[in-house]
């Protein structure tokens, strides 16, 4: 346990030094309320980055949700995911029940943890800034309507370590945290996905 806690610290330090990460809490302060942080996804490092950027007391109660197909691989990946970051590993695609991947997330929330999710469902390799959201975040919100959904835009992580490359480039990453959202009563799936996605897009810096 001590080794894991120490390893977690080392991993945080490494991620923060590599990316010079800075967090702009624009829409809410870093408070210890129960939240689902949802972010754009362009790099395998995203969930470690967002997790590392939280203040330590929030970090210990926040669990990133990651694909079991990649992060469940025995070895270093599984060690990082299970022991250092305490990720919630879920099976992606292929499942016959639409809601089954949500189950482990609901369990984590019911035990009092916050979550980090990437509602695009996969890494964005296109030139589009943000892919359409999968319906998972909607089902999660329906099951946990008392939890705040907080958008976080991650800028530059795609350039630090793009797909198929193994040497990370130490570019500066900026995380912009927006205002919390909650599902409204009787809100349709498409409307909720649209609203959460627009809230995330609004945090994108006006560069390029």
């Amino acid at each position: 346990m001590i080794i894991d806690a120490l390893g977690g610290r080392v991993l945080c330090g490494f991620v923060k030094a590599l990316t010079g990460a800075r967090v702009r809490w624009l829409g809410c302060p870093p408070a210890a309320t129960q939240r689902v942080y949802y972010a754009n996804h362009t790099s395998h490092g995203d969930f470690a980055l967002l997790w590392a950027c939280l203040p330590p007391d929030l970090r210990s109660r926040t669990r990133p949700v990651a694909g079991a197909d990649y992060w469940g691989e025995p070895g270093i990946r599984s060690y990082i995911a299970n022991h250092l970051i305490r990720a919630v590993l879920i099976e992606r695609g292929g499942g016959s029940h639409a809601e089954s991947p949500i189950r482990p997330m609901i369990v984590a929330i019911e035990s009092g943890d916050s979550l980090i999710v990437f509602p695009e469902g996969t890494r964005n390799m296109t030139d589009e800034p943000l892919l359409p959201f999968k319906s998972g975040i909607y089902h999660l919100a329906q099951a946990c309507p008392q939890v705040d959904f907080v958008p976080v835009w991650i800028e530059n992580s795609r350039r630090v370590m793009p797909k198929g490359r193994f040497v990370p480039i130490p570019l500066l990453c900026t995380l912009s945290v927006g205002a919390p959202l909650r599902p409204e009563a009787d809100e349709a799936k498409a409307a909720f996905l649209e609203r959460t996605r627009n809230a995330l897009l609004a945090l994108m810096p006006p560069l390029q």
Partner: protein
Amino acid sequence: MTAPQETFAIFAGIGATLLLASVIGFLLKKRGAHGQPHGAIDNLNARIRAWWVMVLVIGLAFVFGKAGVIVLFLFVSFFALREFMSLTYTRRGDHDALATSFFIVLPLQYWSVWIGWYGLYSIFIPVYAFLVLPILSALSGDTMRFLERAAKVQWGLMVCVFCISHVPALLTLDIPGFEGRNLLLIVFLVLVVQSSDVLQYIWGKLFGRHNIAPDVSPSKTLEGLIGGVASATAIGAALWWITPFKPWQSALIALAINVMGFLGGLVMSAIKRDRGVKDWGDMIEGHGGMLDRLDSVVFAAPVFFHITRYWWT
């Protein structure tokens, strides 16, 4: 005086100046702002605190001599390049070119400065990096905005690595009668150019009326430019005794690097305006990023290096 004594005397002078600045900042905060938050005064005090840190870091590097100075500027280049590339449009196809810039070009440039190989460090980035990096990007097969991407990577290396490495490269010059004192050339360059920045800021705040380049940098005024460059040139002339120059030569050289420093600030501001940001980063409190503090040194260093090399070696 010996070179270490001269260096110590200069640092003692800088320390006394900073102490005076800190006292003035403290009084301004107490009397002018009555201890309340005040944008300009708080920024001034943040800048003064950051100056203390920067002077301490440079002083520490000087204690370790040549190795300390080269390692210091290696890191300065690294942080500057990181700020530059973070604000620059590149694509996945540039990954190899960027990785090469950070992990091969940057260390090799400083290694060639370390061994004093003028024939390499003076052409390595303008020739070899210039040819190899676009080759790497072309091999990736991504042609979208290709020339723009290749040019930006090259620009970042020229500004952040090539130009900045000319500060420690001053240690490699063999100046007859000046042996063992080359660290003082760095003191002269950095002190003159940075005091020009500070004095332009002070003159501009006190007397600034006419904007020189409102579209590029709203804080640059004619009064600030003339007052700052003139007084920093006077400082340069007064420092002739730590250089191989005569007083009038020292004044002329100080004038040249101050003008280059001012114009460098203008160019780097133009890039920031184009990218829609106010500062390059936020690693130096009150100043912005590494490049915000160094933009004038970037443009002054190669000119100072070659003036000194051409006429004094």
